[in-house]
């Protein structure tokens, strides 16, 4: 018996070391070398949607003096997964995620300096807004948040618990109610109503787009840049920027032990040239002079996540899996649909 428990203990110890050392391997399919100290090599780890923009930005950077001879290794994936992979050891010099809590995770792990958001753009490199993606010609005439609650309207949004980015959608709906003068309780009641119209909760924003273009639903809650990408790819969709929505801000940061070229690259991301490429790919440039050259509509009421205390607070209040407002709504809905 004693020997068995000895084996169990050593197995567990081995397992732990494997967990500690092995996790880094999981997300690194796209990376073979270790970036960081190579000098001439940069590892970019980003969420999935800006890939097309980087395909143009990186060659542009390599043409500048600072970027001459810098090679890139790139890895794209779901924001939360990418962030966790870096936390677990995936080498990264530059990280871009869909929401700042994914960078906060790396700050907590000591991988990104806490001053990452101290530049004049607060660490954000692109903006977007939550929009309504509708069928070509908007047959249901969806214009306002209230229209989403019309009889028979089916709404598609990714599950806010599997898709970190999808939380923007929920917060946009909530912010729209608050900015229309509703009370907090009324805004929560709206969310509750809205979830009654949600027919599918895909795991990610891309899955949701797939579902919508596959013919399911009348409205897809998504980001303006996703809607524009879909249109650029020839999908038969239109989109409506509602009068009240939320400003999506995508953060970028360099890791603590990244070479100077990483900082140069991030600096380049704020150049007119790079910002223009982001703008062409559907993102709202954060540099105002560049943004002004595009005609992205400014909604009359544009809330920010900071209005609600920032992602740290919002995550606990809305998206805590047990006590969060959204978890409770899903639970109530689940109980009622289960019996009905």
């Amino acid at each position, binding site marked *: 018996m004693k020997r068995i428990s000895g084996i*169990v203990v050593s*197995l*567990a110890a*081995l*397992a*732990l070391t*494997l*967990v500690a050392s092995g996790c880094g391997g999981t997300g690194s399919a796209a990376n073979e070398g270790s970036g960081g100290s190579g000098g001439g090599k940069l590892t970019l780890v980003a969420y999935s949607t800006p890939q097309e923009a980087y395909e143009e930005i990186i060659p542009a950077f390599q043409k500048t003096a600072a970027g001459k001879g810098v090679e890139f290794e790139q890895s794209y994936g779901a924001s*939360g*997964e990418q962030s*966790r992979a870096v936390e677990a050891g995936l080498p990264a010099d530059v990280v871009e995620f869909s929401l700042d809590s994914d960078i906060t*995770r790396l700050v907590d792990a000591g991988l990104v300096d806490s001053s990452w958001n101290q530049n004049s753009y607060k660490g954000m490199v692109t903006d977007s807004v939550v929009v309504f993606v509708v069928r070509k010609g908007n047959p249901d005439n969806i214009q306002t948040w209230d229209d989403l609650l019309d009889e028979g309207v089916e709404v598609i949004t990714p*599950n806010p*618990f*599997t*898709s*970190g980015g999808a939380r923007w959608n929920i917060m946009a709906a909530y912010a729209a109610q608050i900015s229309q003068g509703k009370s907090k309780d009324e805004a929560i009641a709206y969310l509750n109503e809205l979830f009654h119209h*949600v*027919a*599918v*909760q*895909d*795991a990610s924003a891309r*899955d949701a787009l*797939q*579902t919508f273009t*596959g*013919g*399911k639903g009348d409205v897809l809650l998504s980001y303006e840049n996703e809607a524009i990408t879909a249109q650029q790819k020839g999908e038969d969709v239109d989109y409506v920027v509602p009068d009240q929505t939320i400003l999506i801000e995508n953060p970028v940061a360099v890791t603590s032990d990244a070479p100077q070229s990483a900082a140069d690259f991030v600096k380049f991301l704020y150049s007119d040239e790079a910002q223009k490429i982001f703008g062409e790919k559907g993102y709202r440039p954060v540099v105002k002079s560049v943004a002004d050259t595009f005609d992205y509509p400014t909604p009359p009421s544009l809330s920010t996540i900071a209005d609600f205390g920032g992602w740290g607070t919002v995550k606990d209040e809305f*998206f805590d*899996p*047990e006590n969060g407002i959204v*978890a409770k709504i*899903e*639970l109530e*809905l*689940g*109980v009622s*649909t*289960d019996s009905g």
Partner: protein
Amino acid sequence: MIGYLGFIVLIPLAAVVWKSTGGGLEGFWNAVTSPAALASLKLTFGAAAVVALVNAVMGTLIAWVLVRDEFPGKGLVNSLIDLPFALPTIVAGLTLLALYGPRGPLGVNIAYTRMAVVAALLFVTLPFVVRSVQPVLHELDIEMEEAAASLGAGGLTIFRRVILPNLVPAILSGVALAFARAVGEFGAVILISGNVPFKTQVASVQIFSAIESDRPTAAAAISIVLLGLSFLALLAIDLVRRFGTKHER
């Protein structure tokens, strides 16, 4: 051999167990008894059971046709059986969605329902029973059947009393594999299920959502329940099989 098993299977499993206890016993219990987790576990095991049963019947039937019947293109069909194994399951999900979704060419729209979950699982588990029954059926001595027939047994009796008892162990092991696979399937289900908590969210997606919500302990805890219940089911099937074989001799 033990070392290999250890590295490939035992240590990873031990790591999951270890991780699941990170929140103490109470944390473990809370994670697996949360209403959303319970609902997803119920759906997962229910769907897996249905899938296992359908496979038992249809898989045996397909194996029978492939072994006993001759028809043009048999070789092709035979090699088609394994394709669900080779296809990345997310592609399988995508394909099924295109076929049985709202714009499917077949006019069948079951996407985003529990039916869809079962359909996706049936697709990825098809080969198990077929492939475990096929060789046994091949080896089965046709003279036994002829002997039975010469003694006056009808077709149904021959099947029930002579063929089936020989096939049951193979069917059961195929069913066990199909069941276990169905319980853990993720890729094929995630697109087509619609992923609505309490309605179509399976346990593997629930686990994914726990990871995405930064609750790795809860994710591991639900995994342990999946593993534990699957293990019990496999054990039960194995016991039935052993009992059957012993009973036979």
